[in-house]
C-alpha cells in the first residue's frame, strides 16, 4: 500500500471518528431522552 493511500486512509479514519463523536454528543443533547422515553414504553 502506497504512502499517500495510507495517509489518506488514516486521515479519513480520524476524521470519521471525530465526526461520529460529535454526532453522538449532538444526539445526547437532542435525542437521548427522546430515545429513553420511547424505549421505556417497551419495558
Amino acid at each position, binding site marked *: 500500500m502506497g504512502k499517500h493511500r*495510507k495517509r489518506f486512509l488514516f486521515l479519513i479514519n480520524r476524521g470519521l*471518528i471525530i465526526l461520529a463523536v460529535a454526532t453522538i454528543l449532538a*444526539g445526547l443533547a437532542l*435525542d437521548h*431522552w427522546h430515545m429513553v422515553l420511547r424505549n421505556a414504553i417497551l419495558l
Partner: protein
Amino acid sequence: MADEQKSPTVTIKREREDVQRFWLLLARWRTTVQVTAALLLNSYFTQGLTKGLPCPALNCYACPAAAFACPIGSIQHFAARRRFPLYVLGVVGLVGTLIGRASCGWFCPFGWFQELLHRLPTPKLRLSNRFHWTRYLILATLVVVAPLLTRQAWFCQLCPAGTLEAGIPTVLLSPHIRTLIGTLYWIKIGILGVALAGMSVIRRPFCRWICPLGALWSPFNPVSSFRLSVEQERCIRCNRCQEVCPVDVRVYENPSSGTCIRCLQCVSECPVTCISVTSSSWPTEAGRAESAKSTPELC
C-alpha cells in the same frame, strides 16, 4: 552502525508478530465472545439503565429480555417521527469507523444464530455475493423511505430476528397478546421459516443480502481502524480463505470487502499466513523500511 540500523526494524517485526499471535488467539475465542455478547445484550436486569443506548448489533429491543436498543429499530422510530437520528447514527458511525463490520462477526446474536443453524447436517448451497446490493435497497426502502412516508417501522414488522426474539416469546408469555394474533403475525412466521431454512443451507444469508445494519457498516470496512491486509506476493490463491469464510468472501481479491465481517477465520486458517490484521496509522520511515525488507525475508 549496522546494528543501530537493524535493531528498530527487528523490534517492529517482532511487535507485528506478537500482534498477529494475539489476533490468532482471539479468533479461537470468537464463539465465547458471541455467546457472552448475546447474553449481555439480553441481560434483562439492566433494562432500566441501558435500554436508551443503541447496541452494536441487530438485537430486537422488543425482546422481553433485551437490555439495549436495536439501532435499526431506533432509526425507523426516528424516521417515523420525522426526526434525524443523530445519536443512533453517531454510535453506528463510531463502531463502523473503529471496527468496520466486526460487530456482525463478533457481537451480533442473530449472526451467531445463523452460524449455528448452518452447522445442521443439511445439503449446502454456495452463492456468490453478487447481489449484495439488496441490503442497501432494504435499508433505503424499509428502514428510511417507508417509515418516513407511512409512519410505521416496516423493517421491524417483517424482521425475522424480531419475530424470533420478540414476536414468538411475547405471544408465548402473554395470553392477552395471543388474542390479537392476525395475518401479519403469520406472514412474519412465514418469513422466519424461510429465513431459517435458508440459514441452514446458505452461509449467513441474512447478513449478506438483507441486514440493513450490515449495509450501514459495509462502507466503513475499507476505512476502519481494524482492517485486513493481504501480502499479494506470498498468496498462493488456494481459496482456503473463501472456504472457511462465513460470508463466502475471496479475501485475497478484496480484503476490504463490504461483506467481510472480520471474524478472522481466514487469518487463522491461511496456509501461508499472508492475511494479517492492520490498523490505521500514519506511515513512518521505520514502518516503510520494515515492510520493504520483511517481504523478501519471509519469502
